[in-house]
Every structure is written in structure tokens, then in C-alpha cells.
């Protein structure tokens, strides 16, 4: 049997302003916004309401009633933002929370209250926490969403309706508790139907004829004959673990233990379904209402609890426990099928597909960022610095082969550095060159190897390069090139690499 809880925030927006500016707590104040050329009150606090000022009045009229009234500009989107935050805060009590309209939260609490020793204590706990934080909240628990909504807003007797008793509980409530259109409510009132009990005594045919199907639907919903769907703030993930803590946790080792326990449970579930984790999000709900998120990613689907814990271990120092964490939620945000790798017969050699390598890379990437690990594939380009490209993945292959017919230096400078050269005759290798202030006398040389520029890719004018391999008297080997033809005005010499 499902159970629902509805929390109604009577003065949601004004409570928030009072929380931010404590001096407002003792003053009647309203929030106003410009609507069709009039400044209209959109929210009023309880003190203002006690003076007869309510939502929908023009500010000028309200000022006439109460000259000392404080008027504050309304913030658009404030209500939905506040409800979202409050809804996320409520996830510590149940995983399914939803926003209802402008001023309410709906919680599917089926199977949750026993953790707080029953529904009475559960409701009291939530309402007390909200009231301590300055929110004027009313809550009710019932079998149906409609009944919880009605009792929270209009109930006067008791907030918790025992299973199956919603009919008796709503009989004495006004028709507005049925969540109806104001026009229909006005019509009901005009006809003298001022209690839900009066409406229920009429036949369904008569109701449908006079008030349309909406009223019948609402009645079915409140009594539980018709199911209602709720849209949770956080979509429920198939693989998710929750760990509520009796004592709030504020040490790194405590977080570690909690993580280990959740990961083991999560991985057992994943393993059963043959799935592996690609992305996991750890959400820590702090006692003071803050929510801290941290996430990890893996390069390959994994349900290896120890490995995943190692990835999270690097993040633990970044989690600020503040006054303490009371609930951990671990969600598998992305999962994939695990390709069950056949274990290699001769263990010892890693392949690019081996899980051990994948786990190492996951650790590096999660600590240092995704751009630290590179793997290169040959690229069919002319210039040496462009003759290789970064591979997108460990599996990527290319049809191009590594060129190995020409000598290539083992170290290549990221950009060629200019050198001073003296060469005897055109297109002969240099006799000597000066690099970083040192003179190198060339004993042996090879070349030239002309490498054309890639004019079809380049925007600016460039020159071809003539590369020479040189060896000096000490045996050091260099790769230098002349950019452009010999003896031209813009011809320059560069050193580009060192041979082994």
C-alpha cells in the first residue's frame, strides 16, 4: 500500500526573505510584482495577513490599510528554485520527492517511516526541521496524493490518516480541498455544497452533468480509485545505493567505509545484471542542508568494487563534511554491458584491452584530468610534427602505417629553433653550425631530404624544408633543415631534433 506525504509551505517566499533578513521577522511585509500596469501583492507574510492584507491586492490598497507595510520586489523563479532545493533536501527521507505547484512538496514515503520509528515521529521530525529553519510548513500523510494534499491544507483534526480512512477524514473538508478549478468551487459553493461529504452524497451522473468529469476524477483520485503519477525531482536510477547514517559522519575514513559498503552492494547488483559502471555520482547530504556531489568515470564498464573505490579514494579529500554527513547516495549514472574478457592463458603480458591497464588509466585520468594520457597513430601528412595524431581511444586502429624508410630523430623539438649555419655550396650539408652559443663542427652528414609544405592545408605562405642529418666531432647527431631555397633572402636554418 503506498503512502504519501504532502508538505505545504504556507509562506514559502516570505519565509525565505525573513531567513535572509532577520529584521523582517517582526514586520508585516509583502512581495510585489508589476502585473498589467498595477503593482500587485504576490506573497504576504503571516503578520501582514493578520492585518487583512492578502495575495492579489494592489500595493496601493494595502498601503492604505497599513501605512508601515514593507514592500519588497518579488524575485521571479524564486518559488520553484526554493522548492527544488527543499525537495533535494527531503531526499534524505525518501528517494521519491516531487514539486507540487508553487508551494508544496510531495513525497512518496512508502516503506520509509519505520526507519524513524513510525509515521508520527517521521512527520514530526521533518516538520520540526523545516520549522527550525524558518519555514512555516504543514504536512500530512495519507494513502493517496489527493488526501494528503487536502489534509495538509485544510485538515484541522490530525495530520496522519490511517490506511483506508481517507473517506471519513475528508468528509468535513470544503470542496476546494479537492484540487478543483476555482470556477467549479465557486459554483459548488453557490449551490450550497460546502463540504465534500455533501458532494459525495450526490449520484455520479448528476455530478458529471453539472460539473464535468474533472470533479469525478478528483474524487476518484482522493479516494484511491484512480492512480496518480508523480514526477520525482531526481529520476530514479535502476542502480543506486543509499546509506543513511545514525550518527553524522565527518571523517575521511568514515566516508571511505560508507563508500566501500555502498560500492560492494552496487557492484553485486551490477554483476547480477552483467552490467558495469561507466560513471558514478556520490551525493552526500550534510546535516546543515548542503548537498555535495562528486563523480568518477571509467574508461571501460567495470563492476570491480576495489578499483572503483580507488577512484573515489582520490576524491574523498575534496568532500567537505562540514558539521557532518547524514546520508550518502551512490548512483550509477551511466552503465554499460560488461564484455566478459577471456582471461589470457599466459598471464603477464598486458594488452591494450587488459583490465589492469584500464584501471591504471582510470586512476590517472580521475586524478589528473582526461587530457594527460595520449596514444598516437600515424597520420599521412608531410611535415614530421604532423605525421602522427592522437588516438581517441585505446581500441582505435588505422590503416596507415608508420613510415620507417627515412631516418627520424628520437627527440623532436616542439617548434624548430633557429641556428646559424655555414654551408660550403648550395644544397650541400652545413660545415658547422652554432646552436645555443656552441659551435658544432660537422664530420658526417646525410641529406638533403626535401619535405614539401602542405599548401592545400595551410593558410599562410610557407616554404619547403630540406632536412639534413648531421653528426659532429663529438658524435652527437642532429636533424636540421633549411627553410626555402639556398641563398634566397628569406632562407633560414633551423634545428628540429636530436638523433639517438
Amino acid at each position, binding site marked *: 500500500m503506498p503512502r504519501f506525504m504532502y508538505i505545504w509551505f504556507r509562506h514559502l517566499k516570505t519565509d525565505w526573505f525573513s531567513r535572509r533578513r532577520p529584521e523582517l521577522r517582526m514586520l508585516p511585509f509583502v512581495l510585489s510584482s508589476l502585473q498589467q500596469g498595477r503593482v500587485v501583492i504576490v506573497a504576504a507574510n503571516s503578520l501582514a495577513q493578520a492585518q487583512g492584507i492578502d495575495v492579489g491586492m494592489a500595493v496601493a490598497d494595502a498601503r492604505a490599510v497599513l501605512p508601515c507595510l514593507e514592500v519588497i520586489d518579488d524575485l521571479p523563479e524564486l518559488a520553484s528554485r526554493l522548492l527544488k532545493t527543499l525537495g533535494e533536501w527531503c531526499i534524505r527521507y525518501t528517494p521519491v520527492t516531487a514539486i507540487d505547484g508553487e508551494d508544496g512538496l510531495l513525497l512518496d514515503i512508502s516503506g520509509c517511516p519505520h526507519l524513524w520509528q513510525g509515521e508520527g515521529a517521521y512527520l514530526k521530525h521533518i516538520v520540526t526541521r523545516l520549522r527550525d529553519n524558518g519555514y512555516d510548513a504543514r504536512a500530512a500523510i495519507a494513502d493517496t496524493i489527493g488526501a494528503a494534499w487536502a489534509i495538509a491544507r485544510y485538515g484541522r483534526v490530525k495530520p496522519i490518516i490511517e490506511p483506508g480512512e481517507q473517506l471519513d477524514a475528508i468528509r468535513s473538508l470544503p470542496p476546494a480541498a479537492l484540487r478543483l478549478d476555482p470556477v467549479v468551487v465557486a459554483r459548488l459553493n453557490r449551490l450550497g455544497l460546502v463540504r465534500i461529504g455533501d458532494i459525495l452524497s450526490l449520484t455520479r451522473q448528476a455530478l458529471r452533468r453539472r460539473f464535468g468529469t474533472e470533479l469525478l476524477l478528483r474524487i476518484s483520485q482522493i479516494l484511491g480509485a484512480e492512480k496518480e503519477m508523480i514526477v520525482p525531482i531526481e529520476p530514479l536510477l535502476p542502480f543506486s545505493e543509499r546509506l543513511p547514517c545514525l550518527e553524522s559522519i565527518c571523517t575521511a575514513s568514515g566516508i571511505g567505509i560508507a563508500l566501500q559498503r555502498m560500492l560492494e552492494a552496487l557492484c553485486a547488483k551490477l554483476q547480477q545484471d552483467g552490467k558495469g559502471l561507466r560513471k558514478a555520482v556520490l551525493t552526500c547530504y550534510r546535516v546543515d542542508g548542503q548537498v555535495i556531489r562528486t563523480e568518477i568515470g571509467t574508461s571501460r564498464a567495470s563492476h570491480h568494487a576495489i578499483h572503483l573505490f580507488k577512484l573515489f579514494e582520490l576524491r574523498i579529500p575534496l568532500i567537505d563534511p562540514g558539521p557532518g554527513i547524514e546520508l550518502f547516495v551512490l548512483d550509477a549514472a551511466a552503465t554499460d554491458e560488461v564484455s566478459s574478457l577471456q582471461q589470457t592463458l599466459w598471464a603477464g603480458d598486458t594488452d591494450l584491452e587488459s583490465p589492469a591497464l584500464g584501471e591504471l588509466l582510470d586512476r590517472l585520468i580521475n586524478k589528473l584530468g582526461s587530457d594527460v594520457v595520449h596514444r598516437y597513430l600515424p597520420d599521412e601528412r608531410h611535415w614530421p610534427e604532423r605525421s602522427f595524431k592522437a588516438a581517441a581511444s585505446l581500441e582505435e586502429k588505422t590503416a596507415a602505417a608508420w613510415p620507417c624508410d627515412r631516418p627520424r*630523430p*628520437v627527440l623532436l623539438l616542439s617548434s624548430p629553433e633557429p641556428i646559424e649555419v655555414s654551408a660550403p655550396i648550395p644544397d650541400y650539408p652545413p660545415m658547422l653550425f652554432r646552436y645555443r652559443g656552441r659551435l658544432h663542427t660537422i664530420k*658526417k652528414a646525410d641529406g638533403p631530404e626535401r619535405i614539401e609544405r602542405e599548401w592545400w592545408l595551410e593558410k599562410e605562405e610557407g616554404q619547403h624544408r630540406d632536412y639534413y642529418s648531421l653528426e659532429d666531432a663529438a658524435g652527437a647527431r642532429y636533424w636540421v633543415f633549411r627553410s626555402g631555397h639556398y641563398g634566397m633572402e628569406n632562407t633560414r636554418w633551423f634545428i628540429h631534433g636530436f638523433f639517438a
Partner: protein
Amino acid sequence: MSMDQRNIIARLQQEILPLQGFKPVSLDAAADVRLGPMDRTFPNRRFPTGAVHEFLSSAPEQSAATAGFVSAIAGMLMQKGGVGIWIGCRRTIFPPALKAFGIDPQRMLFVDLLQEKELLWVMEEALRTEGLAAVICESPGLDFTASRRLQLAVEKSRVTGFVLRHTNRSPGTVACVTRWRITPLPSRTEEGMPGIGFLRWNVSLLKVRNGQPGSWDMEWREGSFRGIVPDLKSLSGEQRRKTG
């Protein structure tokens, strides 16, 4: 010293080696690293795999020679497949060139870091990963504690690590198994032929635990190391005077 005593000492030496982290590797499992004339200088008469080696260099030319020499060893380690990792901060290694040293550049992963202090952490993590063929790290700084950690990591995983230290400072004491310095040597071409010959290096093994340090001239030719005997003609005047 009589023959008996020498045998006893040799046997004791063999018993000490495993205690120091030199585990005798079964012949078929071990990658075949052959260093020509240098092989007999190492404990167990084999280049120690599953250990951390330290290479010093001070000029870019020496760095290039070291990179070539290490690539050649890593190429031998990666001959039967396997993956290598090359870690550096301002890496200038040119991937296509690795092909010449027997490495398939696609099987080499490059880790490029922004901060030097992360180098050794990455290296340690990599060395802990069982089954990697070679882990090469260009890290100028390496102190005794860090090198001890690396050594402990490889004793478990049997990965071979290389630390390339490009530094002008004194290298200090480290717990690596060997310390090397590779200097390029002039290549030799046939009389009257133009061009540059096969790569030649002077390989000096400054330190080797339980082995015999020394200096060798080596040539990298067709995928293997060969020792070269310095011929008197190629020696400079000063060197000739030294050797007599």
C-alpha cells in the same frame, strides 16, 4: 683462494640475490633483453628486468642517446606484445622514431603532466600495474625515499622501470638497481662512403647492484646491440696518448 672457496662464495651470492629483489626468472617467461658484451656484468648474467634503472644525462644530445638506448631495451621487452608507458612533463620524444627501436608506437602510451611533483606518483602507480612491459619516466628529481618506493613497487609487479634524469646537479644516492650514462659516439662508415653509419653509444654503467660497473662502446645495428672495439685509428690524439 681455492676452487672450493670460490664455489662457496658463488653459491652464497646466488642465495643473497633473491633476498635483494633479484628473483631468478624462468627462461621462457622473461623477455629477451640482450646487451651484447654487457650481459655478463649483471647478476644472474642477465639484464635485470623487474627493477628500476636510473639514467643520467646533462645535455640534449645525451638525452637523445639515452632515449634511444632505453627505447631499444623497451623494444626488446615489448617484443612479445605488451604495453609501455612513457611519462614526462615536457616530452619531446617523437613517436614515429620509436619504430626504429622495435617499439610499435601504438602500443606506447604517453602521459603528459603539467607538474613535476606528479611524475613519480604516476610512475609508482604504473609500476604497480602488473603486466606492463616497460614504464619510462623523464623525471629530473628523484630522491632516496622515492626511488625506494619505486623499487618496492616493482618487486611485487615485476615491471621494468626506467627513470631518465636530465639534470646538471649531483644525482645523489638512490635505491635503483643500476645507474647509467649514455653518450653518443661518432658512427663509422665504410671508407670513403658518405652519410651517417649505425648509431653508436658509449654506455657507462656507473653503478650496478651485485654486478661489475664498467664502460662499453656499443653499436645498435639491425635490432641488436653489438660491442665495438675502439680501433686505434679513430682515436683522437689525446685518447691515443692515454691508451698508449
